[in-house]
C-alpha cells in the first residue's frame, strides 16, 4: 500500500492526486503522526506544477465549482481530510459530472459535511472573534479555530474595518493576518505575541461584561442552548466569558 505524505498545501495535494487517483488502495495524509501498516510504502510527494494543473483542469472540466469545495475540505483540522477530498474527486471523475446534489450518496454526504464544518466555523468566527485595542490603535484578535479559516474570515474584516489597522492571529497554526490600512499580509508568528493594550481597553471590556450580564434574563436559564450555539472551546478569547482576562 502506498502512503503519500503531504505538507498540507493545496498544490502538494493535487500533485499527489495525479498518482493516487488510480492507486485504489492508497493513503493520502498530511498528519504528523501517521500510523503505518506493515506493508506501507512511503512516498514523499513533490510539487509538480504541470501535474497539479492537469488534475485541476480535469476536475474543473466536469464540475467548475468542485475546486472550491475541495479547497474548503482541505482546510479541515482533521487527519482524514485528504482522503475525503480524494474520494470526492474520484466520484466526480467517475460520473463525469457534478455530484454535490447526490445527497444520499455516502461519499457526497461525507464531503459536504466536512465542507460545511469549515464554512460553519468561518461563519461563527465572524461573530465570535474579539479584537483588543493595542497601544498604537492597532486592533489585535487572537483565536484558535478547529479549522484553518484565517484566510476565509479575513475578507470579511477587511471590508468592515477598512481604515482600522488590525492583526488576526491564529495561535494554533502560528500565523497572523496583518492589515495596516493599505496592505494586507499573512505571516508566520511565534507562539505568543506580546501586545501592550491601550488605556481604554480595560474599561470597554468591563462595559461589555456589564452589558452581557444585564441583557441576560437570569430567570430563564438555558445553558445547553448557549453552549450549543457557542461551544465552550471558543470562549478562551471572549471577555464576556472571562471576567479576569483583561
Amino acid at each position, binding site marked *: 500500500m502506498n502512503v503519500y505524505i503531504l505538507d498540507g498545501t493545496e498544490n502538494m495535494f493535487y500533485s499527489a492526486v495525479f498518482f493516487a487517483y488510480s492507486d485504489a488502495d492508497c493513503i493520502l495524509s498530511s498528519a504528523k503522526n501517521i500510523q503505518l501498516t506493515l506493508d506501507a510504502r512511503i512516498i514523499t510527494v513533490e510539487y509538480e506544477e504541470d501535474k497539479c494543473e492537469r488534475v485541476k483542469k480535469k476536475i474543473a472540466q466536469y464540475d467548475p465549482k468542485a475546486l472550491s469545495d475541495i479547497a474548503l475540505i482541505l482546510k479541515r483540522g482533521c487527519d482524514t481530510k485528504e482522503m475525503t477530498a480524494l474520494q470526492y474527486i474520484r466520484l466526480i471523475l467517475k460520473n463525469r459530472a457534478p455530484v454535490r446534489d447526490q445527497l444520499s450518496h455516502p461519499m457526497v454526504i461525507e464531503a459536504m459535511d466536512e465542507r460545511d464544518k469549515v464554512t460553519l466555523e468561518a461563519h461563527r468566527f465572524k461573530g465570535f472573534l474579539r479584537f483588543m485595542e493595542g497601544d498604537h490603535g492597532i*486592533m489585535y484578535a487572537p483565536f484558535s479555530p478547529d479549522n484553518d479559516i484565517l484566510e476565509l474570515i479575513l475578507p470579511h474584516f477587511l471590508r468592515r474595518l477598512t481604515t482600522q489597522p488590525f492583526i488576526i492571529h491564529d495561535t494554533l497554526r502560528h500565523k497572523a493576518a496583518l492589515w495596516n490600512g493599505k496592505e494586507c499580509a499573512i505571516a508566520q508568528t511565534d507562539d505568543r505575541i506580546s501586545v501592550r493594550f491601550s488605556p481604554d481597553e480595560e474599561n470597554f471590556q468591563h462595559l461589555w461584561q456589564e452589558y452581557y450580564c444585564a441583557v441576560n*434574563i437570569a430567570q430563564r436559564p438555558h445553558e445547553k442552548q448557549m453552549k450549543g450555539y457557542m461551544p465552550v472551546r471558543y470562549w478562551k478569547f471572549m471577555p464576556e466569558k472571562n471576567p479576569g482576562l483583561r
Partner: protein
Amino acid sequence: MIDANRLKILTESAKYDVSCSSSGSTRANRKGGIGNASIGGICHSFTPDGRCISLLKLLLSNRCIYNCLYCPNRAEADVPRASATPEEICELVLSFYKRNYIEGLFLSSAVDRSPDHTMELLIDTVIRLRKVYRFNGYIHLKGIPYADKALISRAARYVDRMSYNIELPSEHSLKLLAPQKSKESLLMPIRQLATEKFVFDQEKKGKHSTRFLPAGQTTQMIVGASPESDGQILRLSEAFYRKFSMKRVYYSSYVPVVHHALLPKKCTGLLREHRLYQADWLMRFYGFTADEIAGTSENLPEEYDPKCAWALKNMHLFPVEINSAPLEMLLRVPGIGNLGAYKILKARKFSSLGFEDLTKMRIVLKRAKHFITCNGKFFGSENISTVKTMLALEAHEEKYEQLSMFSTPETSVSALTGQL
C-alpha cells in the same frame, strides 16, 4: 463616556424586546467608513438564557410619560431611571463594533417628555452615527407612536430596519390596557413606512446610493394578556405579512407583574408562544394560510404542532410518495422541514430514496413515517387514532422540555413584563 450603572439600567429596560436579528440588509461599507451589514445576520455572543446577542440593545431613556399597564417602565412604576446622550451612544457603538462585540445598534426609548422630542433624539443619534462617525453597520430603530410623519420618513433613510410594536392583538384590548396608545397611532406609521418603501424601491430600482429601510419592518405583540384567540392572532399576522410586507411578527407570552383587575392573574405559558411561532413559520415558509391552520375563534392544539394538526385533519391527502411528491406537498409532511424538503428534491433526481437513505440524509422520520411512503413502502401506522396518540406522546416530551426551559417559578416575579 457612559458609566456601567446607566448602561445596566438602559439595557435591562430594553432586554424584553424580543427582536435581535441583524439580517436582511446588504448595506456596504463606504470609503473612509467603518462597518457593513451582512445579509444573513451574525450572532456575536450567546447569553446563559440561550438568546443571541447580535445588536447592542439599548434604550435612550427609560423615563416615560405613558402608563401602559403591562410595561415595567410605565410612568407610575418605581424603577431606577436613566438616560444617555446621542454622543454617548455613538461612542459606545463604535468602541464595541471595532472590537467585534456587536453587529450594530438596536435603539429604542421610552416616551420622554413628548413623542416628537424622543423621536428627534433617536434620529439625532442615528444620523450622527452615519454621518459623523461614518458607521455603516446595522441599525434597528424603534418607532415612537404619535411622532411626526416627517420624522419617521427621515429616520427610515438612515436605518436598516424599523419597528412599531402593536402590543396587543385587538383594538379593544389596546384601549383597555394601553389607553394612551390607539390602534391608529401604531398602524399609521407602519402603513406609511410600507407605502413609502414601496414607492422608494420602485423609483430607485438598481441604484444603491440611498436606501429606505433595506431590512423592512417588524412588530411584536403580547399574547394572553387579552382574550383574543390564536386564530385571530394568526389572521392579524397574515395581514401584516401580506399588506405591509412585514419581515417578522414576534409574539411574547404574557407574564403578570402588575396586579390589576383588567389583567389576567395567570401566566400564559410558553407553549402557546411556541405554537404561535410554529404556525407563523408555516405561513411564511411552508405555504400555509391562516385559514388552514386555525379557525377564527380556535386556539392551536396543545397536544401536537400545527402542521401535525393540519395533517391529521387532512388524512385523505396522505401518505405521499417521497420519490414523486411535489415540493408543496413535501413541505406539508409533519416532521419534514424546509431544508429536508429541498434535500429530498435534489437527491431523488439521482436515485430513488428508501427509508434508510432518508435517515442517512438526517431527515427525522419520527413523525414523518406516518405520512410518507418510500418506493411504495409504508412504515407508519395505518390506524389514525394510534398515530394521534404517538404524535401527542412525542409532542408531550417536547412540551415538557419547553416548559422546563422557561417557566421557572421566579419568572413571574422578575420578568417584570408581559413582553416576554
